[in-house]
Every structure is written in C-alpha cells, then in structure tokens.
C-alpha cells in the first residue's frame, strides 16, 4: 500500500522535531556531566518547528546562518549529531575541530555559513551569500535565522534594505521565543508587528504559528519560491522558549503561569496528536520512533564523550590560510628577548 504523502511528511517532520528536542536534552546532560565546552548553551526546546519547517522547505545548495540558539536548525539541515555534539564538547572530532563550540558551529558542505554569538552578527552574511548566488545564477537562496532580540539590531534593517534594493534571493527568519535573555519582547520593542517593518523595506512578510510545523513549512516553501526569483522575504515564527536562556538560567524573571501556558505551544505534542488522530501511527509506534531517536542521540553523546581533545599546539592553526606562517607564541618572544634557546 502506498502511503499518503501527507502521512510520510508528517512522520518525517515528527522524527525531525523529536530529534531536535532529544539532541538538546542530551546537550543538557552533557553539560550536567561537565562535558560541554563552556556553559553558554542555548537550547532550542520549544522552537523545533521553526527549524524543521523552514529547513524542510530549503534545498541543497542553499546557504544559511544562525544565531546562538541554532543547534536545532543545523540538525534539521542534516548535520551529523555526533559531530555536532563533539563540537559542543570542544572535541577535535567536532565540526570545527573544537575551535567554535555551540555558538560557532558551521559546515560549508551543508551550506551552514555559521552560527553567531553576536546578536544579529550573521544576518548580513546571507546578503553577501545571496549576492554570490544571484551573480552565479545558481538558483540558491540564503536564509538568516535569528531571534526576536535581533529585531532591535540595526544591521537587520541595513540587510533588509540592501536585499530588497538588489533583489537578492534572501530570506530572514525570526525565531520569536518571546524573550531576549530575561527581557520579554514587549519590554524591548515599542511595536510588535515585525512583518510591517519588513514590508516597509519591500520584503514579503508573514507570521506563522510555531506550534504547527506544516504551517511553517508551507509558508516557507511558498516564500522561498519567490525568494529564488529575487523577492526577499521575512518570516516570523512564534514560539516560546521552554527553558532558561542558557543552560544555567532558571528564568526567575518569568511568571509561572506564563511558563505553563507557553510550554503548551509544543509542536511535537500537536503533531503527535494529529498523527494518531489521522491513524497514521499508533501511540506505540510513536513511542518506538522516540526510542529510536533516543538511541541515535545517546550514541552522539557517547561519541562526543569518547572523542579526544584537540592537541594544545593547534591553538596557532587556522588564524590564517595554512600557506601563511602561524602566529608566533608568547613564549617564543620571551625566549627571543632573553636569548634562551627556543623550547
């Protein structure tokens, strides 16, 4: 029997959503064990549909950048969770060989032009990538993912204007989780209709419900068609940050009732219910899928734990092209000045 295409897609999305959440849960465990490089771990639990829905609409060859809360976006793009986890652990088997970590993960092969720890820092890179794609006529699109906090950064508006002015194949995706660290959006922004800002610059703009992965996907796919023709777009995905800003944060600044309500905006729960109601999967089959994903992510965690640390002398590599000399060490300078032999 041939499966209903919507069923196939629903199951694919469901698996992806669960993968993102489970990956983040394992990151959290890794942190508790003291295995992450640093504590600046921004989990995207509650924001899975933005990652999975938009990525579902992207094509091979498209480029993208993310903000600091970008694990889920990269995973949905097809990243290897093992190498991601290893990078978050600062290991040499990680995507950036332990130099970038959670906030600077990147992979040119998958078009990931980099996560960024400067709020708004990666947005303008897709303008440049879009320019490259336009000049090469390759039909690719460049997508910037960022949080609601970046809606208040000037670079976004320079980027929107230039994208529209030059008709670049660029899409701006705001993952609105209602908070920038501890500041709720309504205390950071005088107006909340961000689509209108984008429209003012000549972009197509829409807002979607981040609990409905299909809505995110359909809207993105629709927008990306026009984006590829040179009509840049802006999409705001409304969701809620289930946990603290970073792993250490317990969100004392948030109201309990608000949190309880916010966590009901759960794309995974909604899709699961839909799948069961449609009769595409039984509850037990959903559980099996979740188990499979858990195993996958347990392996990723183990892989990261077992990977080796980079060797200390690697600190001087990659500042410049390997053809160029590496920077000289501080110790070298001291020995040179005092005429000690170079150790």
């Amino acid at each position: 029997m041939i499966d209903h295409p919507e069923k196939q897609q629903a199951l694919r999305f469901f698996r992806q959503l669960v993968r993102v959440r489970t990956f983040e849960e394992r990151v959290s465990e890794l942190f508790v064990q003291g295995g992450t490089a640093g504590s600046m771990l921004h989990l995207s639990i509650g924001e899975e549909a933005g990652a999975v829905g938009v990525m579902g609409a992207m094509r091979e060859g498209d480029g993208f950048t993310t903000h600091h809360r970008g694990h889920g976006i990269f995973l949905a793009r097809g990243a290897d969770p093992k190498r991601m986890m290893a990078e978050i652990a600062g290991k040499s088997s990680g995507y950036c060989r332990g130099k970038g970590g959670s906030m600077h993960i990147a992979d040119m092969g998958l078009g990931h032009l980099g996560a960024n720890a400067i709020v708004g820092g990666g947005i303008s890179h897709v303008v440049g990538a879009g320019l490259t794609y336009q000049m090469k006529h390759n039909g690719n699109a460049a997508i910037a993912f960022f949080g609601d906090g970046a809606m208040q950064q000037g670079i976004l508006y320079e980027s929107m204007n230039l994208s529209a002015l030059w008709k670049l194949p660029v899409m701006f995706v705001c993952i609105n989780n209602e908070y920038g660290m501890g500041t709720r959006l309504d205390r950071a922004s005088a107006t909340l209709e961000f689509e209108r800002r984008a429209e003012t610059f000549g972009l197509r703009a829409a807002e979607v419900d981040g609990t409905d992965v299909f809505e995110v996907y359909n809207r993105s796919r629709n927008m990306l068609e026009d984006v590829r023709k040179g009509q840049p777009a802006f999409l705001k995905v409304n969701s809620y940050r289930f946990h603290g800003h970073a792993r250490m944060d317990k969100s004392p600044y948030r109201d309990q009732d608000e949190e309880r309500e916010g966590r009901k905006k759960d794309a995974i729960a909604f899709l699961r219910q839909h799948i069961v109601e449609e009769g595409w999967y039984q509850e037990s089959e959903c559980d099996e899928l979740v188990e499979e994903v858990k195993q996958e992510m347990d392996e990723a965690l183990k892989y990261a734990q077992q990977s080796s640390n980079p060797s200390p002398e690697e600190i001087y590599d990659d500042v410049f092209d390997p053809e160029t000399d590496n920077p000289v060490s501080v110790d070298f300078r001291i020995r040179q000045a005092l005429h000690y032999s170079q150790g």
Partner: protein
Amino acid sequence: MAETTYREALRLALTESMRSDPSIIILGEEVGKYGGAYGVTKGMLEEFGDARIRDTPISEEVIVGAAVGAAMTGLRPVAELMYIDFVTLAMDQLVNQAAKIRYMFGGQIGVPMVLRSQGGTGRSGAAQHSQSLEAWMMHTPGLHLAMPSTVTDAYHLLKHSLTLNDPVVFLEHKGLYTLKGTLEPDKALPWGKAEVRRQGGDCTLVSYSRMIHLCMDAAETLSKEGISVEVIDLRTLHPLDMQTVSESVSRTGRAMVVTEDCLTAGVSAELSARIMEEAFDFLEEPVVRLSGEDIPIPVSPQLEQGSVPGVERIMSTVKMLLRR
C-alpha cells in the same frame, strides 16, 4: 617611463585584477557613478558594469557584512569604506566576523575580502575624518594590514591583497592620492617584506604610509648636516617584517619609530616593544616614539599639523636621539 599617481596605481591594480579574476567585485558608497569619494574607482563602472561595481546605500555595517558572506561563498569582494573613521560602524563585521571566521570554524573556510579605505590627516578633515586607526586592525588576529607609501607599493600591495585567502585591510592615505612616481610593474616585493628606502648608519627610522615621505625629507636634510639616517618602510603591518628592522638597528644602534596614529597603545608601542625584544643588545639608546599626539584631530590646519609628526619634528627628534 611615464609618471603615475598613487590613485591611478590603485585603479590599475583593481582593474587588472578584475580583468583576470571574474570573482572580484567592488562594493561601497559612491564607488560606481561617482567614481569613489577620492576617485580611485573612477571609470571602472564603464568597463565592468554595475553588477561588479556596486554602489551601496550608506550602510557601513552591511557593506562589510555582505562582503564577508560573499567572500565565504565564492566571490572576492573589495569593500570600500570612504573613510577609515567609519569603520566604527562596521567593527563587528570586521573584527568579530571577518577576522575570526576561519579560526572559529576550525579552518573550514577563509574570508578572501579586501577592505579598502583611507585615513590620516592633511586635509583638515577634523576629528571624524582624519584618524589613523591601524592599531585597532593590528590588534586583531586574523587580519592582514597593508599601508602603502609609494605608487609602486600601492599597485603591488593591492594586487597581492587580491590573491590572499584571508581578509586584508588596505589603508591608503588621503594625502598620497596625488603623489606621482614611476610605477615599476616588475618590482614586486614579497608580501610582508619591508623595504629600506634609504641607507644610513647613525639611526634607523621605522615608519609606513605617508610618514615615510616625511622621514625621507628629514633624512635628506639631515644628511647635509652629516647625519646619516636609515629609513625603513614597513609596507605591511601584518605581516610585520621585524627582521629587516632588527638587522638595521643592529648596525645603527638607535631606533626611532615614526607614526601618524596616536601615541598610547598605538602602532609605535608595538614596534618599540618588538625592537626592544629583538635588538636590545644593539641599542645604544631607548627606542624613541614620534607619533601622533593623544588628542582628537583638530580642524584648524595649524592645529592639525601640530597633532602629527612633521619633518622638522622628525629632524629635531633624530638630533635628540643622537645627542647632537
């Protein structure tokens, strides 16, 4: 051979590079129709068209930021900032992004872009159009930094910048655009090699960009008084050719650093420390730093002149160093 201006040499370098490398584009404010605020790109729009010579809005951060993204995806952008003073608006893109991307991403990719701009005093541009901010760039690992003083260097250093796989900050001097000289197209020194502009035995002047010319004038006049000054033009501040400097100081025993940027934590501080580290045994006197004053640049031509080293100051400081 016919004389060429510094401006023409830069334009020639850009033009020839763009002819041979179709991935090179230029973007910046007024680079196209207007021909560049200082006329460097004049006429290039006609040859290369508006897809490759791109006028941008007055949006410094996205000019540099888009160049970063374009460089990461296969173009080789030349981003022009009208004045280096405006780099403050693009500092995140230069310092946190362009300079660090190769490293943060574990060497996966470089950012082959050139940020062209101009700085320095000489036109009464006042505090926001006259600064020498090269120390900020030099203080940022991951950036190359070229500061040509001559027509030939303007040409070769820019051409070379357009072959590197990492970001280059290319700083011209607003007072040099009309400088004339013989362009020596075959005289390409290796990247990162300093040049001894004048040989001498009494002391070594280390400098770059416009100050080289002042050092040369001072050295010429001093020679008539029997003082023999060696002048070293660093050409690039990253890479920094300390070997040429140390070798010279080992002969002269006296070193003076001449820079237009301000004194405190400036380029002269680094150079002086390096000379101390690498040629201490040869030094007869402490390294002397003749730099810009620690003040914003004032507009009055008289005050402006007093804020940066001049030929007279260079001569009198050399004499102090030589205890004459």
